[in-house]
């Protein structure tokens, strides 16, 4: 118990003594872990998107805005005849606006101005009998003059998955680089502590303190810096994620974004804290080996 108390008090004293360096180490580690967190969050969303892509194989055919009711009605009945089509649902301009309002709910008033001059195109939503029919159906739809644009979930998902993967690789690569930098920065912070306490260390060894006893406060200091970094990184990642999710919900309402529930947050913080502690331990172990000569 006394030993533990000694280690804690030593650690907090030296972190306080090297405030700036300690802060910088935690911040750098925090940044590395922020990138890890972003990668983690992106991967949660990727998984979610794969699921979406599998369950919702809906094709949306956006029709010409100027098309008349009869033109649209005949197009719908022709679409029903395309082989592989299982379900067809017509969405009028008005329906589309209603859906949009439903999506925004409390912010629906901003859409009021659209009532007079509705810019949304009418569309047809098609479900196929299976994923294998999608390419042929899409091709058939594109042949219609009245069809402006064809989008289907799988295509959207595939693109999003690609973007997501790119983000993930970038952030993981960045994390490795910044992670290495944080190991070095923590190592340096620990070196400052070791330098400040060199005489004390010398006396400790002289009077028979074990190497473990001499080293532990330094290792603990590194671990603590790494842990602080993980808290900074998690906080920052969650903040950025929520901000981006909000922006996306605002501009691309149909894009699915996973909300962060407490379970996911804890899981993420767990991974981050573990990584932070390892980075801290690596940094302090490096410095202790190099500068403590135990």
């Amino acid at each position: 118990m006394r030993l533990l108390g000694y280690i804690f008090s030593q650690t907090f004293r030296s972190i306080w003594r090297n405030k700036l360096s300690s802060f910088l180490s935690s911040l750098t580690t925090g940044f590395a872990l922020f990138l890890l967190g972003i990668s983690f969050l992106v991967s949660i969303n990727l998984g979610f998107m794969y699921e979406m892509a599998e369950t919702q194989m809906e094709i949306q055919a956006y029709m010409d805005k100027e098309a008349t009711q009869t033109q649209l009605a005949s197009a719908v009945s022709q679409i029903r005849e395309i082989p592989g089509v299982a379900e067809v649902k017509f969405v009028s301009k008005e329906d589309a606006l209603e859906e949009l309002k439903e999506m925004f709910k409390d912010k629906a008033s901003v859409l009021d101005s659209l009532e007079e001059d509705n810019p949304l195109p009418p569309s047809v939503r098609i479900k196929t009998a299976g994923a294998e029919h999608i390419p042929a159906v899409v091709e058939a739809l594109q042949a219609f003059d009245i069809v402006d644009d064809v989008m289907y979930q799988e295509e959207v998902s595939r693109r999003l998955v690609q973007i997501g993967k790119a983000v993930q690789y970038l952030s993981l690569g960045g994390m490795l680089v910044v992670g290495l930098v944080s190991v070095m920065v923590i190592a340096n912070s620990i070196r400052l502590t070791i330098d400040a306490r060199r005489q004390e260390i010398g006396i400790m060894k002289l009077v028979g303190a074990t190497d473990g006893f001499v080293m532990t406060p330094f290792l603990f200091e590194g671990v603590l810096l790494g842990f602080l970094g993980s808290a900074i990184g998690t906080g920052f990642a969650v903040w950025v994620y929520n901000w981006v999710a909000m922006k996306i919900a605002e501009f691309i309402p149909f894009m699915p974004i996973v909300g962060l529930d407490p379970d996911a947050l804890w899981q993420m913080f767990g991974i981050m804290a573990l990584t932070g502690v390892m980075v801290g331990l690596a940094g302090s172990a490096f410095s202790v080996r190099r500068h403590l000569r135990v």
Partner: protein
Amino acid sequence: MISFRNVSKVYNGNVKALDRVSLQIDKGEFVFIVGASGAGKSTLIKMMYREETPSSGQVFVLGKDLAKMRKREVPYLRRRIGVVFQDFKLLKDKNAWENVAFALEVTGTPRREVNRRVTQVLNMVGLLDRRNAFPNELSGGEQQRIAIARALVRNPDILLADEPSGNLDPETAMEIFAILERVNLYGTTVVVATHAHDIVDNLRKRVVELRDGAIVRDERRGAYHY
């Protein structure tokens, strides 16, 4: 207690600090190591608490072969050996009491035991009433007495002193040696490397003289010079 067998120490391949030294120190002895600066006194002392290891030959302390001793065993050897230096090596941000207690705390001694031992040993060096003073508030002699208290707080089998009076005036030096002599009376083996002629001549203890790393004299009741 301490035994050197044909010990040599070579630094950087050619500087010879010790040259085939053989020396036997028994339990309860008081030994002066004398000789000019650079004669190898400090190296000899350092080998006794395994701060240095021999380039060749064997060093036995408290029954252990120090050359073969594993690094993790060294702390346990040092807990049985007190060491005192010319520059005291006290921690400036700790007061007298804390400096002495530190030696027990870093080995996880229970607080009650620490209090008991520190009181005892500060009393022995006559500085219990100065226990709250910081090193910069203490005279050189007082600082050295605190350092001796720290070296003794664990009740060591051996007390090593490397020029303990090097920074002190002759009168204060005499006080320090009086304490070392008293420690020796209680049964602790004392080895002192020193330049203090008068004291060596006065105390008439065993004197080992080093010259260029080799033992040139070992007298039972010797003086600083022949």
